[in-house]
């Protein structure tokens, strides 16, 4: 099992209902390529209810990438949309499902604190 990717999918499966995905129903199959091995995960979204399994079945959309790419995407270090445009992730099937999926991904690790004043002094 790949570490970050596996942990990511298992955590995703535990998140249950995702309000942001309520307009979405569909299945996405992930093929994580590790040399000659291919690890498969199946993400099922039913009007926002998210479930993850290892079933090896056809899906509405398949995303295929090297393990190293998935590790970085799952940890927020790589942007899924840019990776797809670059060809590091291949999409087959209904590519529209990439959009809601990428919203479940974490943001990049922060290098510095964002510019923002504290709440003090508001409503002057």
């Amino acid at each position, binding site marked *: 099992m790949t570490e970050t990717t596996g942990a990511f999918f298992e955590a995703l499966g535990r998140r249950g209902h995702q309000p942001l995905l309520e307009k979405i129903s569909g299945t996405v199959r992930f093929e994580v390529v590790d040399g000659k091995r291919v690890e498969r995960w199946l993400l099922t979204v039913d009007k926002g209810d998210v479930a993850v399994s290892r079933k090896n079945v056809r899906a509405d959309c398949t995303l295929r990438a090297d393990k190293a790419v998935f590790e970085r995407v799952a940890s927020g270090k790589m942007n899924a949309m840019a990776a797809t*445009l670059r060809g590091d992730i291949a999409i087959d099937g209904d590519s529209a499902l990439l959009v809601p999926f990428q919203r479940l991904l974490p943001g990049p690790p*922060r290098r510095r604190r964002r510019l923002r004043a504290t709440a003090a002094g508001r409503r002057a």
Partner: protein
Amino acid sequence: MSDGLIKILDGNTFVVSDERGDIEASLTDPTGLFSFDTRFLSKWVLSVNGSRLNPLSVDDLQYFETRFFLVPGTGTVYVDSKLSVIRQRAVGNGFHEELTILNHDDKPVDLTVRIDAGCDFADLFEVKDALSKKGKYVNRVEKGRLQLVYERDRYVRSTVISASAPARLDKEGLTFKLKIGPHGRWTTDLDVVTAMLGYGERHELPKFGRGRGRQGMERNLDKWLDDAPRIECDWDPLKATYRRSLVDLAALRFTPPVVGGRSLPAAGLPWFMTMFGRDSILTSLQALPFTPELAKTTLLALGAWQGSRIDDFRDEDPGRILHEMRYGELTAFEERPHSPYYGCADATPLYVVLLDEYERWTGDRKLVRSLELEARAALNWIDEYADLQGDGYIWYQRRNEKTGLENQCWKDSWDSISYRDGRLPGFPRATCELQGYAYDAKMRGARLAREVWKDPAFADELEKQAAELKRRFNRDFWVEDDEYFALALDTEGKQVDALASNNGHLLWSGIVDKAKAKAVVRHLIGPRLFCGWGVRTLAEGEARFNPIGYHVGTVWPFDNSFIAWGLRRYGFKDEAARIAAGILDAAEFFDGRLPEAFGGYERSLTRFPVQYPTACSPQAWSTGAPLLLLRTMLGLEPVGDHLVVDPALPAGIGHLELLDVPGRWHRVDAFGRGRVDVNGKRASLRPQLGVGGNT
């Protein structure tokens, strides 16, 4: 066309060629076949017996199709005039070209027809900024097709060229050897198909998409025009402008891969054939009374891409609506942040404004319910992420300091936000119209919360915040000595005090105290801002004023359409009619297609509107301007389940009917008769409409 370039387009695929139909692009010029922000063909040159062809005429058949009539040689060699060459080209996923040669002689003729083809696969950003490529080119001939390929790591883009007639293919083009009998003809179909290949995908040889096809596109355009309201008017140029707007809007429709094949407006040709938060929202607002489905798609697509995390490179925050989406190589390799880029301070409040306005027109509460979360996240962004100074205003400052946008309001050029004396403020900046949009978003959000989401407590809270914002704004931004709203606040809370067209957007938003409106209107139609064609972006007399400065003196038709809407909102019907008259008059000079911007010269000085040199055309929100002006002239306003019509037309327009206006009332007709005298005391420059001089 004025620049000698022929453009056909469909969504984000477009072809720009010369009048012969040839493409010979250099890195810096925007000719070629483009799709998804990438050039897929930079060379496409036809020759017959070794010589180039001369154009006789070009027929623009449809926005997606054109026909070139050509003759060989220089036109002085009589023997060559025995041949005619016709290229008929339609854009699809690539383009399809039907090449026909007619022999008018009574003797047979032997010909060598050659098409030179090649591609640099430039990213549109590279064309714009003249950057060089990092990958490698592989051209090959395979299975009777010429394949042009560009590879950089796993990034692969390819163009596949094929012909129906027998041809000899080499890596640089196609050659046809043929004989045409007396009075005979020869023809071949040429398919140029684009492909974006991902990791592990096979290099299949795709076919020209028959999905929509030419006939499908024709039917689609006919239906689009049929579904829109019909116009009847005594003033013919207005009818022509209206039709031009509808057709251009159809051409600019773009189908992003999230919304089940529906379309939203892309921003403009050639640089902006993609989804933009601000442009797509404002154009959808302008077009609501005519084609409400654009608004629906815009809301769904922008909602699907709404920011969900903090990403400094993309200037993304949770709840933020995107600025711009791109698909080219620089975006793919994260040399540009457009995957998508979120650095825009107005699209997020405007998203809520559009959602409410859409419901008021269509009564589509189902959509409003389904986007409740997105709307709440957008409202939350205003307070939680945009208030960089902690004083209750929207501020902007990019976090991506290398490739992010410095100015995140619609006037996004470097010198657009200035003090009267020309100094530029530092960052962050709080421009005035952003506060107006925030006010409007809160008020409209409150209405939706009360009526659709059934959350009266949230509605009360939003209204309280809005009232408080309005009170502070009218105190902090009001320039006492000259009675208008400052362009922005600087980081010390001081007024960036230039007088600009943004005051009109403030009227539109409703944030202006009633007691202050009259003074604001006096400025908008006064001699410093109003030039006779429309309201200038920056007032004459300000240090940075320049009548052909991009955001510092030119007139933007879209800006004026929202200013007119603002004037109506505060009851200044005649002033709104005057602006409509000026802009629609200008439209006639541009054959009904308003450019992005034109010069802010005094109308009596130039007598015709001077086009801004590099203006983008057609551009979505300029295309939408005449539509919104029709709405404001007729005073169309949804009230409950009814459409209220309260016309105030410029006198020269005569009778105006807008038939079958769609909405929650199903279809309603609107009528008006011109009565507002916009001439002032000065002589008319044009017979139909007045000069709109400075009274």
